[in-house]
């Protein structure tokens, strides 16, 4: 049977055949949207990204699917500016790079490092007063942290981002508590490196919170594979034992201090009562050992 001929002889009106074709196109596409939604896990370029690209010739290329190439091009420009120690061009280049393609960890992490560690050296000379250097370092550290927070928003969180933030808090902001928190977030991410958890514990210990460090290590110990060298399970177990002793010592001293405090208070109360008794004993003053 010559089915196409039969069909076309039946549907005689050209307009009707055209409508049928369009109908097939729309209905076919509509039917595939559900599958498309499931497959489309890539973040869509956000409004902020578009606005960063405007005027820099990037939009057409981005629309053409050349995002990686455009971002790499901007990255090259950034590195040229970096070589020339051009603060404004470097900062602009970093923002354009991640606006063109937010998908690469590499641009975010290395960009943050440039902002946190390189730009302070360009802004102030080593001979400047320490207070000035530290102030600039903190400003750049804050800028780098903002950059990474934008990365988490556009790119999505992962361990590497939080580790980088932790490093910046440690080295530039001198904020151990915030650094510890970052390492904890890092350790809780999928596929986090084992050291993130250990650094979190170490920082808690430095902050004088050994009990929290101990609780943390005891929580992660079951997740550490024995046959994985990077997990350093034996080290963690030894550390737990050390921390237990430390915590016990701390607890003992605390109790002793508390007991001492209680003993003094009790004696003071006793002296007070004896004083009252003395009064009632017609003013005889007696000295007694306290």
């Amino acid at each position: 049977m010559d089915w196409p001929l039969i069909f076309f002889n039946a549907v005689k009106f050209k307009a009707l055949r055209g409508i049928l074709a369009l109908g097939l196109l729309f209905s076919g596409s509509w039917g595939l949207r559900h599958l498309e939604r499931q497959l489309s896990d890539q973040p869509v370029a956000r409004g902020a990204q578009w606005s960063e690209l405007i005027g820099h010739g990037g939009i057409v290329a981005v629309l053409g699917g050349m995002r990686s190439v455009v971002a790499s091009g901007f990255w090259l420009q950034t590195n040229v500016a970096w070589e020339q120690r051009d603060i404004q061009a470097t900062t602009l280049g970093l923002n354009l790079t991640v606006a063109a393609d937010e998908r690469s960890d590499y641009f975010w992490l290395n960009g943050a490092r440039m902002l946190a560690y390189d730009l302070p050296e360009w802004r102030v000379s080593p001979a400047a007063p320490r207070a000035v250097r530290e102030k600039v370092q903190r400003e750049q550290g804050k800028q780098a942290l903002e950059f990474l927070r934008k990365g988490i928003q556009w790119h999505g969180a992962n361990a590497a981002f939080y580790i980088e933030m932790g490093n910046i808090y440690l080295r530039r902001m001198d904020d151990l508590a915030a650094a510890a928190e970052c390492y904890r977030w890092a350790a809780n991410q999928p596929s986090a490196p084992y050291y993130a958890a250990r650094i979190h514990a170490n920082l808690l210990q430095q902050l004088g919170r050994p009990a929290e460090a101990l609780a943390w290590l005891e929580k992660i110990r079951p997740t550490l594979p024995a046959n994985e060298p990077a997990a350093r399970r034996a080290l963690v177990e030894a550390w737990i034992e050390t921390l237990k002793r430390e915590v016990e010592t701390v607890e003992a001293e605390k109790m002793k201090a508390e007991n001492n405090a209680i003993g003094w208070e009790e004696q003071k109360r006793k002296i007070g009562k004896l004083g009252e008794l003395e009064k009632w004993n017609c003013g005889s003053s007696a000295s007694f050992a306290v």
Partner: protein
Amino acid sequence: MAAGRRIRLIAQHTLAEAVHLRLTLGLGLMSAVLMGAAYRLREFNFGGAELKFINDFGLGAMGLGGGLLAALVTAQLFFQDLETRAIYAVLTRPGQRWEYIAGKFTGVAALLALFFAVLSLLLVGLLQVRAVGLGGASVRWEILLYASGLLWLKSTLIAAMTLFVGAYARSALFTSCLGLLVAAVGQLQAWAQQSGWDWLRVWPNLALFDAQAALGVGQIPSASWMIGTLGYWAAYVALFNGLAAYIFQRREI
């Protein structure tokens, strides 16, 4: 069986014609030169980042060349047959017109496979040479293959859309331009979804096939995602080729 043989013959004929086109050679050379340009930029010496740049730029050049090739060669070969009346030797023989469309598409798909295979080899060579120069930095070849495969899927989809346009259009120029335009529209689908321009969503979301960035950071897509993407591709190819055959059935040659 006879239909399969006719489609295969038309595909082989199309591939042979396409390989001889100056356009094919020109676009292949352009893509290769762009790739080479990425390699030349190594003077900046970014270490491991340089490999990423060469990889990104190379895949970008392949994607650009492949997209152009898909639209331009499809249009040119289709209208060449019409203008030289060579198509009469096919259409006046037993067989349905959809077989001609299927054969044309298959031939262009084979050309694109050849194009991506050759350029992938070139890119692998460039990366290997540079990796050795960087002291044995690691390059994951399977990632590159996945990326090339996705680019091939995207380009063949552009070819199918161009064939759909060509089945109705009257000139190769119009068909090429419209083919490239719908490719751009396909790239905009993700934005259209966000902006609520649902009427644009007639066309496939070509951005789905731009996974090379994710691949570039070492994330091979999951098997379920790959199967889903292949199914999505196959459905749209069938839709556009089917519509092209539908329109072409009544076209007066």
